[in-house]
């Protein structure tokens, strides 16, 4: 898929192609474990066995008890369930919440909704390196703070937050800590037995699994509870009712197992790819990295450029499939709130391009990307008036 004649796919942070082994496993399950996993008959138990073994596979990737995992439709639902569910359960404790301005919309919009409902939200701005310092977090926590939500790897910039230190601050203050790990699960090691994380969101389609399936980890630590957002059945301890999509769950399970097997090799390979791309474009006048080449996740390289219009740049980059700095969805022309929070101007944010790499990306792809980027910049600057912004 990544290198058909028409496209060069460098948008793995948006979604990853489904692994062939995942497809094979899902087809097998669709044919053999079609029954409702909540049914007590033999066919139902067969489906339940698939769900149980898939939870073990995902649990092994995260080093958690499989019973601590709830299946959801993806990271957006997991984020909603974690934040709203925890806040509702702890409403008696107070109405103060903390998150960052650089979070994904699936978190930002939940907090905005809670603000409308009367909660006080402290929006942390990142430092120059895109991170929030533990002492900065500690300073804003209050007696009535219920929950802190901070993403692990930023989907636009690849910046990695120090969730171990941030989670420790939360533990010291007896505040729940939720992590949106949609970009980090299966990409970097996560040991949830060791990390001070209470709630963690993930999704299948970022790790070569299917769309439409995700999970929420809910720690068994005393004091960590969530309320359901939906009602309608007794599945998943009534916390997330609904008939389980056994085939999708099986797909996420095998995707997690594959990710665990390749995680170190893939991380090293992506680092080389990112360096190759940056080396190929860094001499361009006005180019800069939106992120951190030293400590950021190597599967993402977000590049800004001065004096080039973003939408034209994106079209000139075809056949590269990349993302712009116009929010996380291509339908929006609004400049990325993440890049704006990092101090970029609207024009700088709109001309930012996110290259993201994955298992099917080859060195030839990033060399082609570098050449395409260079020639696109040269062409657009060649058309622009001398006084261009």
């Amino acid at each position: 898929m990544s290198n058909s004649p028409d496209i060069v796919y460098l948008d793995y942070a948006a979604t990853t192609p489904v692994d062939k082994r995942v497809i094979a496993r899902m087809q097998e399950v669709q044919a053999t474990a079609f029954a409702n996993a909540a049914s007590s008959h033999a066919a139902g138990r067969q489906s339940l066995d698939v769900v149980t073994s898939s939870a073990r596979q995902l649990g092994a990737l995260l080093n958690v008890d499989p019973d601590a995992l709830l299946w959801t439709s993806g990271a957006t639902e997991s984020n909603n369930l974690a934040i709203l569910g925890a806040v509702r359960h702890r409403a008696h404790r107070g109405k103060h919440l903390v998150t960052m301005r650089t979070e994904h919309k699936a978190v930002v919009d939940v907090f905005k909704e809670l603000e409308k409902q009367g909660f006080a939200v402290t929006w942390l701005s990142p430092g120059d390196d895109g991170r929030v310092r533990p002492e900065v977090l500690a300073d804003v926590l209050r007696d009535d703070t219920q929950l802190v939500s901070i993403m692990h790897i930023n989907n636009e910039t690849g910046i990695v937050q120090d969730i171990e230190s941030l989670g420790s601050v939360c533990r010291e203050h007896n505040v729940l800590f939720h992590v949106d790990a949609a970009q980090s699960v299966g990409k970097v090691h996560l040991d949830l037995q060791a990390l001070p994380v209470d709630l963690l969101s993930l999704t299948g389609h970022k790790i070569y699994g299917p769309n439409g399936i995700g999970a929420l980890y809910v720690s068994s630590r005393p004091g960590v509870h969530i309320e359901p957002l939906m009602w309608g059945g007794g599945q998943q301890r009534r916390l997330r009712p609904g008939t389980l999509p056994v085939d999708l769950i099986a797909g996420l399970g095998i995707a997690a197992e594959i990710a665990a097997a390749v995680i170190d090799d893939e991380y090293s390979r992506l680092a080389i790819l990112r360096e190759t791309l940056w080396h190929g474009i860094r001499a361009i006048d006005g180019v800069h990295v939106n992120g951190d080449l030293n400590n950021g996740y190597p599967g993402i390289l977000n590049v800004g450029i001065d004096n080039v219009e973003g939408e034209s740049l994106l079209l000139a980059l075809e056949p590269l499939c990349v993302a712009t700095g116009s929010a996380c969805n291509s339908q929006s022309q609004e400049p990325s709130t993440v890049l704006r929070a990092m101090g970029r101007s609207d024009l700088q944010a709109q001309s930012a391009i996110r290259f993201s790499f994955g298992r099917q990306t080859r060195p030839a792809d990033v060399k082609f990307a570098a050449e395409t980027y260079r020639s696109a910049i040269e062409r657009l600057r060649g058309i622009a008036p001398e006084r261009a912004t």
Partner: protein
Amino acid sequence: MSSDPYNAMVREYFAAPQHAGDLEGAAIGYFSDQGMQIRLAATVEGERITTMRFRAWGCPYVIAAAEATCRRFEGRPVAALEEFATAQIMQELAVPIEKTGRILVLEDTVRSLGQAIRDSA
């Protein structure tokens, strides 16, 4: 209905504009606003525009519209500049409603060019 936001004409004019560049000794029309800049240059013989070039900084529709404008006026009377309206170009390029404001400023740029030609006469 195509999911491609750009029609074939936008893609062609954006990818390979034949009129991008400068003209020595030409009259110049210029417009700049946040998010876009257009510069039109034209040479004239008698009352007729002989050659027209553009420079543009903006979205693909702005670049394609500038190219379309140059193609339209080469060989036409200078007086036609005063009657220029972008409606037909916008229709040909299938400019989405939220981008029409950017294309409308072409009218100001073209009139600015007409004024520059008159001033240099």
